[in-house]
């Protein structure tokens, strides 16, 4: 058990491009040139404890496997290689059979449907080479249409027991779904599970909608819409899908909204003439405070998780750069000094890093730096990568990538903060401007 914990924790904290790690014991994780050797695990089909539960048993284990393998930290051993079958949740595990196929972690589970139609899902995690259970078995209850969520909760538990970090699977993403060519693009807000399942549209495409951002608890979404003819910040209740315009200064463009960690305040940009500044509004009262006063463009504000500071972008130096100021405004400090332009800063939920979009020499990058601007690392490169958003555990970023040319289309990608495991997030249409919500 200690082996799994130690190795994966090490893998997660390793950020340098080239690290070789050899260790004693059965579990080996070698990171070379940013490539990690994932931990092999097995997740046999969950046991259906009644006939009614049969349809969910396999789906649960498949979703768990999708989550774990999708992190790039784990590798599933295919079922046809399994020696043992798990036919009862209570029977003792034959560790030798799992060792023989080098499964270092084993996840077993069971599902039942109770009298009121609720699903009851149970699971256990084993460290095979230690021959012991990793943490306690757990049980969840939920409705049948929440079966994927229950599987995500299992996977979050497995992830956190093995890595020592909180998971991010039972979370949702709000984004802009896009159709049509570049010069006639139709956009509407959509929400989906982090893995692309359960997609639901929140607006139609009559007005341009941009850059939705989740509230800290995931109950509301801020976004910018042109439904009045000019860009204005709106706030939408996820529950009843009702939205209203935030009472920002009328007749002026307002955009780039983001919630404060308290969920009661919002920061955003207002354009007056040639000048764009950052304002704060208390949503309940509508009381506003102007936070920046420079005659340049100040936009893209994002709070530190403790709510004390705000990172934003400004072109006061002549090009877009990143600055940090107190949450009450005042003199900001520039933190980006590399070549090129920096925009769309977002503060990590762990508080330690700021993710950004960098534009340099005709290419776009998603990168991270420490909050003082040191240790900048670029994680991606393409024709157009933009707008990172943090997974709830601060280990993964999602962003939009647009392809080049007249047929250019946008889609969502995710990448580890180590730069590993770059992959496309499946969406039925084009997609941009993701905002990753909290663990539910």
């Amino acid at each position, binding site marked *: 058990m200690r082996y799994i914990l130690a190795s994966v924790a090490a893998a997660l904290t390793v950020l340098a491009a080239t690290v070789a790690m050899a260790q004693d014991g059965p579990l080996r994780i070698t990171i070379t040139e940013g490539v990690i050797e994932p931990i092999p695990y097995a997740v046999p089909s969950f046991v259906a404890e009644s006939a009614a539960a049969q349809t969910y048993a396999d789906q649960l284990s498949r979703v768990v496997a999708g989550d774990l393998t999708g992190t790039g930290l784990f590798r599933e051993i295919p079922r046809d290689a399994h020696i043992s079958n798990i036919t009862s949740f209570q029977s003792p595990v034959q560790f030798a059979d799992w060792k023989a196929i080098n499964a270092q972690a084993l996840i077993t589970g069971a599902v039942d449907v109770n009298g009121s139609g609720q699903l009851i899902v149970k699971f256990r995690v084993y460290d095979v080479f230690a021959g012991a259970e990793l943490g306690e078995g757990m049980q969840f209850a939920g409705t049948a249409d929440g079966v994927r969520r229950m599987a995500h909760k299992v996977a979050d538990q497995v992830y956190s027991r093995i890595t020592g970090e909180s998971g991010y699977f039972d979370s949702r993403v709000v984004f802009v779904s896009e159709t049509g060519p570049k010069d006639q693009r139709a956009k509407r807000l959509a929400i989906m599970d982090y893995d692309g399942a359960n997609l639901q549209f929140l607006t139609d495409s009559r007005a341009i909608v941009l850059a939705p951002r989740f509230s800290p608890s995931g109950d509301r979404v801020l976004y910018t819409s042109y439904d009045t003819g000019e860009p204005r910040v709106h706030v939408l209740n996820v529950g009843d899908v009702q939205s209203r315009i935030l009472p920002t200064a009328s007749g002026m463009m307002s955009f*780039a909204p983001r919630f404060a960690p308290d969920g009661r305040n919002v920061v955003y940009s207002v354009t007056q003439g040639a000048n764009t500044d950052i304002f704060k509004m208390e949503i309940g009262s509508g009381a506003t405070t102007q936070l920046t006063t420079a005659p340049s463009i100040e936009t893209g504000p994002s709070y530190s998780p403790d709510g004390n500071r705000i990172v934003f972008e400004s072109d006061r130096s002549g090009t877009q750069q990143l600055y940090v100021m107190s949450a009450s405004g005042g003199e900001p400090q520039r933190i980006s000094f590399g070549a090129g332009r920096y925009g769309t800063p977002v503060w990590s939920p762990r508080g330690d890093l700021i993710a950004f979009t960098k534009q340099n020499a005709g290419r776009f990058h998603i990168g991270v730096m420490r909050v003082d601007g040191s240790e900048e690392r670029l994680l991606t490169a393409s024709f157009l990568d933009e707008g990172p958003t943090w997974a709830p555990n601060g280990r993964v970023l999602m962003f939009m990538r647009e392809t080049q040319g007249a047929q250019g289309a946008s889609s969502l990608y995710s990448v580890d903060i180590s730069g590993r495991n770059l992959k496309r997030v499946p969406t039925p249409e084009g997609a941009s401007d993701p905002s990753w919500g909290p663990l539910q």
Partner: protein
Amino acid sequence: MNHLSKALLLMAALAVSACTNPNRFPGDGAGSGSGTGAGQYGAGGIIPGSANDPTSSAYFQQSVGDRVLFAVDQSSLSPQAQSTLDGQAQWLMTNSDYLAVVEGHADEQGTREYNLALGARRANAVMEYLIARGIPTSRLRFVSYGKERPIEICSEEACYAKNRRAVTIISAGGLTS
């Protein structure tokens, strides 16, 4: 009949020239109703509302020039842009019933929210120029579309140059028809 075919020929010629004219802005809400062959003709073969009617929005788009272009990341007005805007100001002075919305745009080489602010800067530069040329502020308004509404879709400077624009959209809002 002869009259009509002449008018149609003229319109065809305009349509052809419009294809190569960077100042053409297809199908936005200018709402002039120009270009329909079924229009009535005024004196001297001028079809009201068509591009050879100097009080029409089609004329404004094609002959005065409804847009100015900007350098990368810039919002300053080139001498050519200023000359176009002088023409716009003159036209707006003459046709005082028209209101104008200046739409600011950016190319795709920039982040979305920054480009919104940049488009606003460009539109504002145009608006301030028109105000300095005597157009009342009450007739002018601006809005930025950032990189949301390119007219050219290639990912090359030839297209970007046309997308970095501010377009003056006129409407007969002052008329009480």
